[in-house]
Each structure stands twice: as structure tokens, then as C-alpha cells.
């Protein structure tokens, strides 16, 4: 197909690329430009240099607080989700009774949308907290742990199926050989299973890191950022800056650019780090 005539090339690529330009590329470039301007609609943009970026950090502490909250949240949930998911995957690859049923149940919450999940957990968490005379909006740390529980409930099953696939892909000869050499279950885990599921580990940390950083729907419905934006993550803070008060669109766009650079940096660093730990087999 190397010598494909131009009109065929256009036929195959144009529909996607035009939609991509409209939905992503032009808005993306326009977004970078607008972050250096003051605007309420796109057409009234006025160049203001770096002032939006400075204001994003200095007008109030919302953005910095959201950044700290997001990083803490990502660290805690990445560790918990991957730990639990891997433990469950080990249990579910031992040919126990009911394995399929358990897999079905643990995976299911992953399909439910973030908005719905947020309200489901709001009911549960408030139902517990009402016994202490408070609700989830009482303190930002309630919102934090509420989100951690919610994310675990949603993502553990997803990561678990990826780890299961990774564990099942380990060649049986390796397991047999290790057994013959007299490896006990603990040695089997540290020297065979963990090194060989590293590709799955790369994927799972990538997915949990990027999902945690970009989390929005669950944050919006569970606490809406309450109390006083104390539990707002970066995506929600940007949304509130944009649509919460007029005159702050430029600041919101600048925050969005910083957010993008931050996510890109984290994701690329994380990929490089965990790819380096994979073994060839």
C-alpha cells in the first residue's frame, strides 16, 4: 500500500483527522494561546503575558491546595489499589472455588460512571458519619478518604483482571522448574511472579496514576469540593475557576496548561521508571 494514491489516503485519514482537529488539536492550541490572554468569550481575548499564570498561584491558595490534595490522593490510591488488586489476583489464580463469580463481582463497579458512584458513596459515607453528627463535607480529610475508598472500589477489580492476565501469562515451565529447585511459595512470589508481572505493573500504575490525577466526576458528585474547596482536586478546581466566577477564564486556562504539563511529566516519568524494571523473558 506504500504507493497509495493521494485521494485514497485522504479518504482513509480525513474523517478522523478533521474530527481530531475540531475536537482536540485546534482547541488545544487555542487553549495555550488563551492562557496568555484575558477573555470571556474567545473573540475578546487581550494579551496579558504571564499574568494569568502568576494569578493562578497568587490570587488564592485554591490551586496549590488542590495540587497537594491531588498528589497525596494519587500516591495513596496508587499504592492501595495496586496492592489490593495484586493480592486479589494472587488469590484468584489459585484455582479456588468460585473464582469466576468473584472476578465478576470485583470487576463490576468499574463499569459504573463516576457521577453515579459519587452519589452511591455519599449515601453510604454520610450514613456512617450521621452517627457522629457530621457529614462528608465536615472536613476535607473526610472527603479525601471517601474518595480513596470510592476509587478503590471502582478500580481494584479492573487492575485485578490485568494482574490476573499477567500471572496467567507466566510460562508454566518456569513455575515447574522453580518447584523442582525447591522454591517455597514466598520465594516463588519474590523471584518468579513479581518480576514477571512487571509489564502488568507498568500498565496498572500508569492507569491508576493517570486516572487519579485526572479524577473529576467522582470528586464533583461525592463532595463537590466541600468544605470551601478543601476537597477539590486539580480538575475540579480548574472547572470552578472557569465557570464559577467571571473574569477568571484566563486564569482557569492557565491552570489547565499547568495541569496538562504536570500530568504529562508525571506520566512520562512513571512510564520510564517502571519500564526500566521490566525483565525480558
Amino acid at each position: 500500500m506504500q504507493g497509495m494514491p493521494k485521494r485514497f489516503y485522504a479518504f482513509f485519514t480525513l474523517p478522523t483527522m478533521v474530527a481530531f482537529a475540531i475536537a482536540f488539536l485546534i482547541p488545544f492550541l487555542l487553549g495555550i494561546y488563551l492562557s496568555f490572554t484575558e477573555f470571556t468569550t474567545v473573540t475578546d481575548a487581550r494579551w496579558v503575558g504571564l499574568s494569568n499564570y502568576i494569578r493562578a498561584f497568587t490570587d488564592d491558595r485554591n490551586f496549590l491546595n488542590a495540587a497537594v490534595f491531588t498528589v497525596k490522593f494519587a500516591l495513596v490510591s496508587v499504592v492501595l489499589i495496586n496492592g489490593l488488586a495484586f493480592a486479589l489476583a494472587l488469590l484468584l489464580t489459585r484455582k479456588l472455588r468460585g473464582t469466576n463469580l468473584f472476578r465478576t463481582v470485583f470487576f463490576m463497579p468499574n463499569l459504573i460512571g463516576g457521577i453515579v458512584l459519587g452519589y452511591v458513596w455519599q449515601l453510604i459515607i454520610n450514613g456512617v458519619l450521621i452517627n457522629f453528627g457530621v457529614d462528608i463535607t465536615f472536613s476535607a480529610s473526610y472527603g479525601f478518604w471517601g474518595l480513596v475508598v470510592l476509587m478503590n472500589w471502582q478500580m481494584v477489580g479492573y487492575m485485578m483482571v490485568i494482574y490476573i492476565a499477567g500471572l496467567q501469562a507466566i510460562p508454566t515451565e518456569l513455575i515447574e522448574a522453580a518447584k523442582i529447585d525447591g522454591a517455597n511459595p514466598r520465594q516463588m512470589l519474590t523471584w518468579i511472579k513479581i518480576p514477571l508481572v512487571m509489564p502488568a505493573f507498568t500498565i496498572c500504575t500508569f492507569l491508576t496514576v493517570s486516572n487519579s490525577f485526572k479524577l473529576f466526576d467522582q470528586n464533583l458528585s461525592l463532595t463537590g469540593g466541600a468544605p470551601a474547596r478543601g476537597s477539590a482536586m486539580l480538575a475540579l478546581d480548574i472547572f470552578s475557576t472557569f465557570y464559577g466566577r467571571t473574569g477568571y477564564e484566563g486564569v482557569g486556562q492557565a491552570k489547565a496548561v499547568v495541569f496538562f504539563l504536570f500530568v504529562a511529566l508525571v506520566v512520562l516519568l512513571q512510564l520510564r521508571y517502571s519500564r526500566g524494571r521490566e525483565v525480558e523473558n
Partner: protein
Amino acid sequence: MTRQQRLRDGLSVALLALLAVLYLAPILIVLFNSFKGRFFISDAPFALPTAQTFVGLQNYVSGIAKTGFLQAFGYSLFITVFSVAAIILFTSMTAWCITRVTSRVSSMFYYLLVYSMIVPFQMVMFTMSKMANVLHLDNPVGIIVLYLGFGAGLSVFVFSGFVKSIPREIEEAATIDGCNPIQTFFLVVFPILKPIYITVAILNTMWIWNDYLLPYLVIGSNYRTIPIAVQYLQGGYGSRDMGAMMAMLVLAIVPIIVFYFTSQRSIIEGVVAGAVKG
């Protein structure tokens, strides 16, 4: 099997069973609360309905009326089905073409698409909804274009990975038999892509069906999809109708569970395949 092993297995199964009950509990709690009167929910969500608190389907009736749920279901279904169909058709064409024709343009397209996956939606949400406005894409048909554009990154990436594994000889044979590239693609390549377009379809269905912010910003004021309808009930703080909320949560979850149980295997396999390639 030794006695010790049997004991350990038994304990593991018991632990898993306990965990499974905890996993299902939130959904069951929402379900039985949806049959309780609106003032009996927030204060005692763990209490089962009693003769006093049971209200039958009243919450469902008021919830459907308040949110326009039936229409929301229709919009969600329409948007999801046609966006996913468009994504499968167009991104598989693009992925095949830019994988087979190695050129500077092809690799530029590929890298633009792949890198777009990292970009958070907030980066483009404002400018994208303005674009949609100007181009009159702010309706359930126009939004399909946005989903195609925004979903192209992941889908082209997954398709390309698969296309690389198809031997070129099959396509060359078709060309020798007189097929032009369009015939080659639709008669020969597209059928081979079947396992992978199921993966792409599932990944995109899960995303689009549950997506909130994009439709909210682009069409939310005129057309509510299911997530928008649920969020709409939130209203002012304290004033919301918890009964209607519970009923809407149940109605939002039921289609997903039905979908899950009808095609559980392909969903889990699709998600794993998508993740491993992504």
C-alpha cells in the same frame, strides 16, 4: 492436598466471599433505599424499608418526571451507539492507512493522536465547547464528531498495534486480484480486525456512556444524558429529593449491569487487551 492447604484454601474463599458481599453492598443499599420515602433515606440509609417507610415506585415516578430520565436514556443510547460506530469505522481506516503507508505525514498523524491521550480534558474543555458552538455541533448528532475526534487517540493506537501483526501478503494478494485500497480494506482487512474492534467498542462504550463533562458543556442545557440527569437532581444543597436520587441511581446502574451480564467475557477481555496495548 494436605490438610493445611485445604484449610488455607477454605479461609481464602471465606475472605473472598466476605469481600464480595462488601463489594455488592453499596449497590444493594441504594436499591432498597429507592423504595423508601424521601425523608427516611439520609437519616437511616442502612435501615431496610418497613411498612411505614415503604413507598413502592413513587420515587421512580417522581424521579423520571423530574429529570426526564426516559429522554436522557434515549440521548445516551443514541450518542453512545453512533459515536462508537463512527469511532470504529473511521479510526480503523485511519490506523490501517497510516500504519501501511509509511511517510512523514503518517508518523506525524500517529504521534499527534497518541500524545493527545495524555492531555486532560480540562485543557480543552472551554475552547472545545466554543468550537462546537461555532460549528453547530452542539446537538446529539454533532457531538458524535467530538467523540470521534477525542476518542481517536486511544482507538487509532489500539488498532495500529493490531494492524502491524497482520501479514502484508494478504493485502498484496487482494491488490493483485484487482482490489483498490478501499475494497482491500473493507473486504479483506476489516473482517480480520473483528477481535480488536470489539475491544475498541467496549472501551469507548464505557467512556461515552458514563461521560459527564463533555456532554454537559456542549449539549447539557438542551439535552440531558443519564449522568447529566443524575447530577441535575443535586440542585441546591439540602433541597434535593433523596428518594428520586436513589431511584435515578438504580435506573442509571441497571442498563450497565444488563450490558455486563450479557457480554461479560468480551468486556473483561476487551478491557485487558485494551490496557495491555495501551
